[in-house]
């Protein structure tokens, strides 16, 4: 027997998912992008991939920082590899530098004229989508912004599912007073205005917190106010499955509650919840973008789509490329995820032919 033997129904759903080309290719593109972005530092970065200097090879991408003096330059701070590349070419030495495809970091201000201002797309300087208001490369910021948004949303979805499934399942399975009390508490909880909570929480966070800690806090606040909707589905589904005869049969055999929940109810319920996953991701991406746009989202200077959109709307006349690229990326991203969601829903639909085909 193979290691993972798929239930034929699951296999059938997978097959149907693959048949729905639009969703399947969107899924491949998204997964491809996600994998690619995990090694994004090798594609879009201001640190060189390889430096060959005096016969030695250096790989600065993931290594410790190299001061300029390492490569015979006259400054002790971090090497500017673009300048190093130019320097080596000008001196005509055997040393060489291999830069990533786009040699800019999302945090780096590359003000050619010495003034921070948006610059139009310029292939020669390798700012393919131009720069933003503080002369940072837009393509780099879009790339890393999308990566953060995607990873953030996947983390968000995982946490929401974990809490929502656990609480909803407990409500449906235990029922009775626990169910009624939890429902009332959830109703109260879900009426707390989320945006105010974000503003309040971020106004009390001390300055000493790192960016990573701030992102985690934002994620927790968002999860804390979003898991409730998951419990509604879980609760009713669990109620439904609990009353079916296969659960009664397990109980007559003497199965424990843990066994009934984990071996019988959850596997039957989770397959329906899978269909909500992409839509949860869509809403998470939209939410984080909206928060960034308002200035309450990911802390600066984290690259983000919402922050670019905000810049773009402020410089709509003078630098239309900012809003265009940010908007375009957002539309493509959300459309792809929605296509995946549609395809999953379609392949899980017991009725084979629906409008989406």
């Amino acid at each position: 027997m193979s290691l993972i033997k798929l239930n034929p129904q699951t296999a059938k759903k997978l097959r149907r998912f693959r048949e729905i080309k639009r969703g399947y290719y969107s899924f491949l593109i998204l997964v491809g992008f996600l994998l690619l972005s995990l090694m994004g530092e090798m594609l879009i970065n201001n640190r060189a991939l390889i430096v060959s200097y005096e016969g030695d090879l250096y790989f600065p991408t993931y290594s410790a920082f190299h001061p300029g003096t390492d490569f015979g330059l006259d400054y002790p701070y971090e090497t500017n590899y673009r300048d190093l590349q130019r320097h080596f070419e000008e001196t005509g030495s055997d040393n060489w530098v291999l830069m990533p495809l786009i040699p800019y970091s999302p945090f780096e201000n590359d003000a050619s004229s010495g003034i921070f201002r948006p610059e139009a797309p310029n292939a020669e300087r390798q700012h393919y989508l131009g720069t933003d208001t503080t002369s940072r490369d837009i393509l780099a910021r879009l790339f890393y912004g999308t990566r953060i948004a995607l990873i953030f949303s996947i983390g968000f979805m995982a946490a929401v599912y974990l809490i929502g499934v656990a609480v909803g399942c407990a409500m449906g399975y235990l029922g009775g007073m626990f169910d009624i009390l939890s429902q009332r508490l959830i109703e109260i909880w879900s009426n707390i205005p989320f945006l105010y909570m974000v503003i309040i929480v971020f106004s009390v966070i001390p300055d000493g917190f790192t960016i990573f800690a701030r992102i985690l806090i934002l994620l927790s606040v968002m999860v804390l106010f979003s898991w409730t909707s998951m419990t509604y589905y879980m609760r009713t589904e669990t109620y439904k499955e609990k009353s079916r005869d296969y659960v009664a049969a397990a109980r007559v055999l003497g199965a424990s509650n843990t066994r009934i929940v984990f071996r019988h109810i959850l596997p039957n319920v989770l397959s329906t919840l899978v269909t909500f996953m992409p839509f949860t991701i869509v809403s998470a991406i939209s939410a984080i973008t909206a928060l960034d746009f308002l200035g309450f989202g990911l802390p600066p200077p984290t690259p983000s789509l919402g922050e670019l959109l905000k810049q773009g709307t402020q410089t709509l006349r003078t630098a239309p490329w900012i809003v265009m690229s940010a908007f375009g990326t957002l539309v493509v991203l959300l459309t792809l995820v929605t296509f995946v969601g549609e395809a999953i829903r379609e392949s899980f639909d017991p009725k084979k032919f629906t409008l989406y085909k």
Partner: protein
Amino acid sequence: MSVIPLQVKSVDPILSVRDLKMHFPVKEGIFMRTGRFNKAVDGVNFDIMPGETLGLVGESGCGKSTLGRCISRLYQPTAGEIRFEGRDIATLKRKELMPFRRDIQMIFQDPMESLNARHTVGQILEEPFQIHRIGDRAYRQQRVKELLDVVGLPARSVTRYPFEFSGGQRQRIGIARAIALNPKLIICDEPVSALDVSIQSQILNLLIDLQTEYKLSYLFIAHDLAVVKHISDRIAIMYLGRIVETGAGESIYRTARHPYTQSLISAIPVPDPHHHSHRQILVGDVPSPINPPSGCSFHTRCPKVMEVCRQTSPVLSQDQQPVACHLYE
């Protein structure tokens, strides 16, 4: 099949139910307060002898499935005793019930519902052994193969899923699961009513074969008298949470005493075009078990209703064919 009469004193009943009551609280209003009770089972007494089949017949909603689920302890009965081999199991907790779970098993009406669609037949049949920690993996798989053989399914069914089988085959899987732990009593909750008529007799014959082979006792719940007659040694007729008449299968057919039983018997179709029966057609529906009628609960539909029926509730008589009816007092 041998008919074991109630009167034999030397054999103790394997199951004896005394004054069993299952009252479900009816939650009403926004505060979900319990005002009234649904008296699904309201004072039931009967015995099942070892190796005997007791057929339990009644209209839908009369409480026969609830009674079955009380005995298999899916429900906690409100009151009364369920004595299994002399020990009262009506109030036992889950852990205390474990040894009895091996002895009392259940077959359900719709096998599509009672088999987990996400498990293979092998997983379904292995589960009883896993729950009771019997044997190692190899032993369990061996037993699964034997069980499939006993119920007449090919050994290769192990890796298949329930939906890949026909209705009758699915019910065989349900039966295999029920006999896996070598039980003594099986509660059959309408095991054939979801099946095609042509399949019904196959399943019934399988149940009868298993009974003789493993010396099983059955509580056979059905709403179809013809089916019950085929398999039962004794029959109990249930109406609105109570047993109104019991007796050996044949005698119930020949000399039905309770007016309700008589109307049920007259409703059995006879495969003879020249046969003209006097069908006693009951009027009205079964009254609600939340608000049962006063006196005899059948008096609202009884063709022979008397004044006393509206006042006092009859008790089951203590003769050869016990009946709860004022006509025979």
